[in-house]
């Protein structure tokens, strides 16, 4: 009998068929990996298992019995626990409060803090998940926050623990520690569902693996009997294309982007960037690697001018201008928060930055705005009902193409791309890569930040590794993931 089963689960979001008749079964004490490309439907499936979504068809079984999960409350009651891709923690509450919430110990009608702290300490001890029960969660490092999430599930007696991309935010060291914890937990009979993109992890910690592609199961393997190639084939329907040929001639000329000894402090005076120096020359793609929060945000905001005038940043030899330096094309990571105004039309979104060029003395003619947008939509093969629909109505990949269309058609010589393929499908991904290469070939200096090491290796001529606000290492574009991963943890050399 399986601890948890999803049988024939189908879920549709409007036109998107996120899950299409998926069967998945997890045995007791098993670590079961779920892999698949962005948008394959992994998170949706896990959300269904945790009662966050109701399936359109199919059912969920626990210990062989059918259960109806209307909400996370139901799921928790049925012994399910989940650690979300985006943490669901309360920054203003303590570790203990975050863990016991929903099932708090109470004495004489009052919250029993002592009992809560004790229970949390006991759990930490048992699973080797160290965390100070009375610390405020808001100030904790990412790895510890994740532990709090896991402890919360265990505190609620989870027998099936779902982790959605738990390693995306972790350093390799933290990842290693997490895997130890997962093995300990699984050994006590808890079943673990592990969603991840990283095949090495699947092979390292998983017992079995299920591969999803476009909402369907395309493979079921026992990890001891498979390898990365087989998994990739199931994931994308073909083998990986051989590494892209690098351009013949080397980048040359004066640097278009130069950062000299840049130090940036945050609101509390803590240095987020320390003495960062590098250059990007015309026709060069420089990759930026590092675990989340290593200073990428501060560096990119400094380079684009969004942090104001930063004398340490030189574009074509002169300091970056405050506001948004027009010499930079910038594809931000946060598609709805920064890169677009979701409620405005496609035409008005791709207009941003070009409005003054299109305007005559008094007017910004609508016809011109729409004509230009139609041109971009055609050239970048963006699929949109019309240029007048809100950009928020476009699929993620098409919205991303629109952002690229806008930025890459700016008359700029420096291109900053931040996670340019996050959450987009393979086709878009290849197109995005082609566009970045084309920009490079036309002589732009490209700064590419990505958490996908394979992407950096595919595109970058050089890769800088950021760790705690410093550039700790520089590699050629063909560095191994192992080398890069080591540097990302701060291990120099």
């Amino acid at each position, binding site marked *: 009998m399986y601890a948890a089963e999803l049988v024939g689960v189908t879920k549709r979001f409007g036109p998107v068929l996120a899950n299409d008749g998926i069967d998945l079964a997890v045995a007791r004490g098993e670590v079961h990996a779920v892999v698949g490309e962005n948008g394959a439907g992994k998170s949706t499936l896990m959300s269904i298992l*945790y009662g*966050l979504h109701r399936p359109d068809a199919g059912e969920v079984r626990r210990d062989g019995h059918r259960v109806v999960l209307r*909400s*996370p*409350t139901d799921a*928790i009651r049925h012994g399910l626990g*989940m650690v*979300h891709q985006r*943490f*669901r*923690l*309360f*920054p*203003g*509450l303590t570790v203990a*409060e975050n863990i016991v*919430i*929903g099932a*708090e110990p*109470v004495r004489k*009608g*009052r*919250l029993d803090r002592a009992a809560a702290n004790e229970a949390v300490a006991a759990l930490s001890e048992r699973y080797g998940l160290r965390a100070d029960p009375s610390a405020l969660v808001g100030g904790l490092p990412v790895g510890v926050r994740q532990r709090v999430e896991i402890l*919360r599930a265990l505190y609620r007696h989870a027998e099936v623990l779902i982790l959605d991309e738990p390693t995306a935010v972790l350093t390799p060291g933290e990842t290693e520690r997490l895997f130890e914890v997962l093995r300990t937990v699984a050994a006590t009979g808890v079943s673990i569902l592990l969603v991840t993109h990283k095949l090495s992890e699947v092979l390292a910690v998983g017992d079995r693996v299920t591969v999803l592609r476009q909402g369907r199961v395309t493979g079921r393997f026992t990890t001891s009997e498979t390898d990365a190639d087989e998994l990739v084939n199931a994931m994308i329907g073909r083998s990986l294309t051989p590494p892209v040929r690098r351009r013949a001639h080397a980048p040359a000329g004066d640097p278009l982007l130069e950062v000299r000894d840049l*130090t940036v*402090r*945050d*609101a*509390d*005076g803590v240095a987020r960037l320390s003495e960062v120096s590098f250059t990007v020359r015309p026709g060069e793609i420089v990759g930026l690697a590092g675990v989340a929060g290593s200073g990428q945000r501060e560096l990119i905001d400094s380079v684009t001018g969004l942090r104001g005038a930063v004398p340490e940043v030189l574009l074509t030899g002169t300091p970056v201008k405050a506001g948004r330096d027009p010499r930079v094309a910038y594809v931000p990571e946060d598609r709805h928060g920064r890169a677009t105004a979701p409620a405005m039309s496609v035409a008005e979104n791709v207009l941003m930055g070009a409005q003054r060029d299109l305007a005559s003395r008094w007017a910004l003619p609508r016809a011109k705005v729409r004509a230009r947008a139609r041109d971009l939509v055609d050239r970048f093969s963006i699929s949109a009902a019309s240029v007048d629909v809100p950009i928020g109505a476009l699929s993620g990949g098409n919205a991303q193409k629109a952002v690229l269309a806008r930025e890459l058609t700016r008359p700029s010589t420096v291109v900053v791309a931040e996670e340019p393929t996050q959450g987009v499908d393979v086709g878009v991904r290849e197109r995005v890569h082609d566009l970045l290469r084309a920009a490079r070939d036309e002589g732009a200096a490209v700064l590419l930040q990505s958490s996908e090491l394979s992407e950096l290796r595919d595109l970058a001529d050089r890769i800088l590794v950021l760790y705690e606000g410093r550039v700790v290492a520089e590699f050629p574009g063909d560095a191994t993931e192992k080398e890069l991963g080591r540097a990302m943890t701060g291990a120099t050399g």
Partner: protein
Amino acid sequence: MNVFEWSFLAGVLTATAPVLLAALGGLLCQVAGVFNIALEGQLLWGAFVAVVVSDLTGSAWTGVAGAVAATVVFSALLSGPAVALRADPIVVAVGLNLLALGLTAFLMRQIFGSGGTYSSPELAGLPDLGELGLDVPVLREQSPLVPVALLLVAVLAFWLTRTRSGLRLRAVGQHLDAAQAVGLRVSGYQHGVTLVAGALCGLAGAQLSLGNVTLFSEGMSAGRGWIAVVAVMLSGVYPGRLLLACLLFGVAEAFGFRLQGAGLPQQAADAAPYVITLAALVLAAVARRRRRSYEHA
């Protein structure tokens, strides 16, 4: 301490009490992540119903109960659209403030047959603490709801930090999705606080129309609900700070009166509470900024 200062303190408390009661409701909503700027309308509605019920029944306490009940019902007009349907709470509140203004003025004419101000010797006001045997300076001439308001500050502080439901409420306000994910009935809590805020505004209104005075006049909330909103903004989720913010307003109003006595024009007194409240907001914001000003080395 001489009589002059006692009377000043009494004036401060009188001005503070209704604002504080309403602001406590606003604070609860803020803790639970509901933006409630309908306090002004609810305060006015509470004041009106308190007078109507007291006039009908001859009992001030029935009036208070009626105000609380009626304002809870009124606040459902906020919680329904804003919490259940997730409508823009600002827009709904703007509508409700207008509705309260119109409804009270309209019903006043229907019930009492005239607009403007209604008072009558038969209208029972809340007793003074002095009459109830608490013959202490400052409190002597206050209604029992004044100490109740002060007590509620402590009760709320205790509730939010020491009880299970208080913890859950704070959780809901901090991270809605997370609260949902740990199995809390998020909208239940949000409905709850919105209605409790209604009850508190009912008390605030009753204190205004049956405690501070014994009558109803059109628009008598006169911006107090907005001051309460500002007090909530100033104090975050801390009831103690809320008390201070509301006292600041009380002092500003009482001080404004003194300004007149000192020869300044009446208009200066009118403006004083707003100017002082705004100044406090600005100072608080600047202080927040200064704490971070060593950011650029």
